[in-house]
């Protein structure tokens, strides 16, 4: 019965080791799919390349389906799976900052490390900026602590807010994702770029 480390089936050391192996695999696939190019991520915003959107959303819906099936078969206890607490104000502010970083830098935190690993200078600059941001956030924490903790609304799950079951929500998200992929492919045809 999962989660493995929470139920002490594997030690936290083994857990980190598995995370390390999975992380290497994740980085490898990101690089192999061309995500270490900043143009790939920026393409989502301009519409000429929506691979990033498709890959991450496919991963999300696969994981959603997988977790619910695991729960159905009694392989994982979903009540032990961590749900991030929701702080409305900082979530919105963070989303805006992250989105602005995406479009100007052309990387997300994961792909920037990927790009830096194969020696891309723009990715290294991005990683540097990331650490600077972490540093200033940490050092200046008392300044924005109130804002950071504002608008706390517990650990809501979307299906609870909407008053539907988890399964119905997953079905809706799958349909939404497929519709989004379709729009993405339409956008790729509409705003093509020769070379990037």
């Amino acid at each position, binding site marked *: 019965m999962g989660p493995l480390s929470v139920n002490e089936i594997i030690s936290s050391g083994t857990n980190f080791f598995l995370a390390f192996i999975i992380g290497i695999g994740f980085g490898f696939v990101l690089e192999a799919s061309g995500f270490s190019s900043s143009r790939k991520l920026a393409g989502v915003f301009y519409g000429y390349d929506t691979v990033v959107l498709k890959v991450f959303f496919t991963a999300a819906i696969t994981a959603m389906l997988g977790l619910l099936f695991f729960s159905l078969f009694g392989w994982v206890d979903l009540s032990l*799976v961590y749900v991030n607490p929701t702080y409305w104000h900082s979530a919105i502010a963070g989303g805006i900052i992250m989105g602005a970083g995406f479009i100007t830098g052309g990387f997300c935190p994961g792909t920037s490390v990927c790009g830096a690993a194969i020696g891309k200078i723009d990715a290294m600059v991005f990683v540097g900026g990331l650490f600077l941001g972490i540093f200033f956030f940490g050092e200046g924490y008392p300044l924005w602590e109130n804002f950071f903790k504002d608008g706390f609304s517990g650990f809501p799950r979307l299906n609870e807010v909407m008053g539907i*079951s988890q*399964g119905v929500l997953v079905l809706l998200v799958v349909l939404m994702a*497929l519709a989004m992929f379709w729009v993405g492919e339409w956008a790729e045809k509409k705003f093509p770029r020769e070379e990037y």
Partner: protein
Amino acid sequence: MKNLKDVNPLILLAMALIPLALVIAAVPENTTKPYKLTIDEVVGQITEGAQYYTADQIADYIVQKDPSIQLIDLRPKDEFETYHLPGAINIPLSDILADEWLEYLDQDVRTNVFYSNGTVISNQAWLICTQRGFKNNYVLQGGLNYWAEAIINPLKPDQTAPNDEFAKYDFRKAMSGALGGGSLEVQSTPSQSAGPMPDVAKKPKKKKAAGGC
């Protein structure tokens, strides 16, 4: 027949995911609580004493004001008002099924430790909660009777007792002082005091698996 390669990958993806999503939308959520113990596991836990926290452990938690521990006094209200351990709340055993206590008993944040005068009532409460599928409930070993004997008025060991006994005694004496029990004994012969305080083994607390992008 059309070759699979000629089909739009989006259609393939939809063909794979939509049926699965339909299945998961149609079946009820699995709400069985897997941590409910089978009768074998209950017997195993009882014989092993896995539900116990020792008086020393609890004294240590109280002195350190560890917020993750919630002491629950199962005795009647008047006894609770006469004396109770610091930070304890009162849930008389007869009220244990009341809805108002549900959020204290069925939660996965704090560690509940039941106590009463002996251990019989605490064990009954522990068994009730365990079989209702609640986690994080434990029992103070020996109850208040042993607590008074060991922590509030610890007996000085014989001069010939091993060093461990003296260390334990010093620890309990210190705890007793911190908890407002008997007065602290002035150490006239410091050379006699044995070593550092014994480590109080803490049970690992379960944490949720954290995740992130």
